[in-house]
């Protein structure tokens, strides 16, 4: 029983972190209809940035977050404005290919700069954990999960309460109409991608703090996780990624306890496919996004 509780607690904190990886991904997908296959590579870029700041200036990863977020926002803005906007109206596999190529460029540059070793950001509190009865939750993971929650709530507030959020939603719903209302779609798209990249960088930093990362396997795994979570949670709702992340995190850690080998991965994929067939709008997403037909 206590094993199960421990697995569930771990699943919750891991799920929050996974949700943070996915929230930017699902934002870009929902607003621009672009599946960003370089999302994992952007997250790992953020992780390296925080790792460098920690290595050279001894900066705590949580304090490095604003720097990472701003740097990746600027990078994301430039990418969208200069590159992705060029093919935004193309058939889906073109945007998929473009972001795939972009991901290859980013992660191979990282690999050439820092080699393929596993890295982690060392902190003094890495080994300490909060004991709740028989359940132990490491402080780092707890803080990362809390941060994920706060960022999601903050993002939802920005999207529903500010002028910027309204223009992002409006452009996502009907770009033509939004432009007629005086919204600069190029700029709004670039800001959206910038926010997504910044969130990816923050998530990458957190992953580097509570675990380890490398430029070869981590980006692909993160992108795939973001994929699954966005579908599970659904698009068009900022809390979708968080809900999807929690479901995946808990399912994986509890499933890993019950099932042998890597059957849990097969089950996760079966759940993904069933979700798509039975409820393509995800657990709490808006149906409008799943009915969208792309040519």
């Amino acid at each position, binding site marked *: 029983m206590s094993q199960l509780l421990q697995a569930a607690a771990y699943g919750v904190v891991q799920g929050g972190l996974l949700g943070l990886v996915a929230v930017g991904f699902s934002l870009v*997908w929902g607003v621009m*209809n672009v*599946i960003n296959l370089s999302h994992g590579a952007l997250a790992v870029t953020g992780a390296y940035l925080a790792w460098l700041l920690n290595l050279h200036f001894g900066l705590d990863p949580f304090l490095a977050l604003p720097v990472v977020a701003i740097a990746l926002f600027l990078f994301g803005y430039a990418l969208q404005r200069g*590159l992705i*906007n*060029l*093919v*935004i*109206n*193309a*058939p*889906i*596999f*073109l945007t*998929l*290919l*473009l972001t*795939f*190529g*972009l*991901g*290859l*460029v980013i992660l*191979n*540059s990282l*690999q*050439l700069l820092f080699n393929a070793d596993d890295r982690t950001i060392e902190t003094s509190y890495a080994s300490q954990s909060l004991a709740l009865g028989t359940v132990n939750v490491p402080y780092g993971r707890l803080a990362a999960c809390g941060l994920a929650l706060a960022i999601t709530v903050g993002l939802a507030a920005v999207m529903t309460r500010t002028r910027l959020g309204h223009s992002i939603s409006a452009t996502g719903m009907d770009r033509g109409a939004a432009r007629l209302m005086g919204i600069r*779609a*190029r700029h709004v*798209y670039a800001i959206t991608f910038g926010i997504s990249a910044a969130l990816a960088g923050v998530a990458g930093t957190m992953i580097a703090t509570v675990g380890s990362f490398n430029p070869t396997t981590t980006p*692909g795994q993160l992108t*795939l996780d973001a*994929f*699954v979570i966005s*579908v599970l949670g659904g698009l068009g709702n900022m809390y979708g990624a968080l809900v999807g992340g929690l479901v995946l995190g808990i399912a994986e850690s509890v499933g890993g306890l019950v099932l*042998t*080998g*890597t*059957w849990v*991965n*097969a089950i996760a*994929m*079966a759940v*993904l*496919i069933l979700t*798509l*067939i039975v409820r*393509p709008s995800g657990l709490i997403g808006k149906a409008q996004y*799943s009915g*969208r*037909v*792309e*040519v």
Partner: protein
Amino acid sequence: MSASPLALILEGRKRPGRELLAEWVRTRRLSNSWAAIALVVGFAAMLGVQQVIEPGTMRLLSAVFMFVALAQAWNLIGGFTGYASFGQVAFFGLGAYITAVLMNNSHLTFWLAMPAAIAGGVLFAVLIGLPLLRLRGHYFAIATLGAAEGSREVINNMTPVTGGGLGITIPTFGDQAPTPYFGKPGFYLAFLILAALSVAVSALLARSRFGYAMVAVHEDEAAAGAVGINTTSVKVIAFAVSGAIVACAGSIYAFQQIEFYPSDVFDPSFTVLMVIMVVIGGSGSILGPLVGAVGLELLSQFLRINLGSYNQLIFGAIIVVVVVFFPQGVVNFFRDAWRLRRISLLDNIRRYRL
């Protein structure tokens, strides 16, 4: 969102590339026989080439032929029918594992195992195609990606049968070998035949009534259904033919590799390569995937040999540049340029930019 392409054709405002292509094929009945002659000449030429090259070059060209078949297969479902599958590698891995399990565990010959792999590919395509082909766009892409990842995990965990993560080995010499190993010249021939057959099958399908049905489903599925096309069966058949070709490629690849692991034959980069080759060559045509597969595989081999650790970086950059400058594919770009007597890369960028 904009009006459907079919509506645009009816209004006469814009004629999409595929409609023009269909017209181009209709008005050139001779081109059918020319294409057949070109295929036979190409096949004979590659047989001739085999006589003068080193075994190492044969191995390299075998890989090129395999990707020609894979690209043609992806083009059937992704290019003609317009369903961008990101899980075609599932058929590759399935074909490889059916072959290896039958040859290793049941001691069947390769000539029985390969048809079984093809049958397995068709069966799997029908099983997952029926529910998944109801999804569109990104959702179909992810569902097929999930199916491929899921099938790898199933193979990975069926350790008693497949050897799981420890891999599987096909016995190739002595009394244990159900079929003697082909060697480099044998696999060159096998992949060459597969490539030629897949080009022929695609060309025949594309110019048949069924080919027009695939394009119609791509252009406007509702309208295609309204004019009496059974869209479900068109989609499932296109998916199954594609799956059969990929499974056959996986089967030969398995025998060539002798020993492999689930992560080798279910590697998502196979799918990505198929997509890239079709898109860069030009989707929805026969020549496009052929040019894309040959060009890209030779290029990536060249980069691997000459640029060492920079090869993936350059490869990624090339993908980005080609997607931006040739979004309709190299073959379609030059065909349009020839027809309109106008070459402009700027037109290409204007087409899809915001």
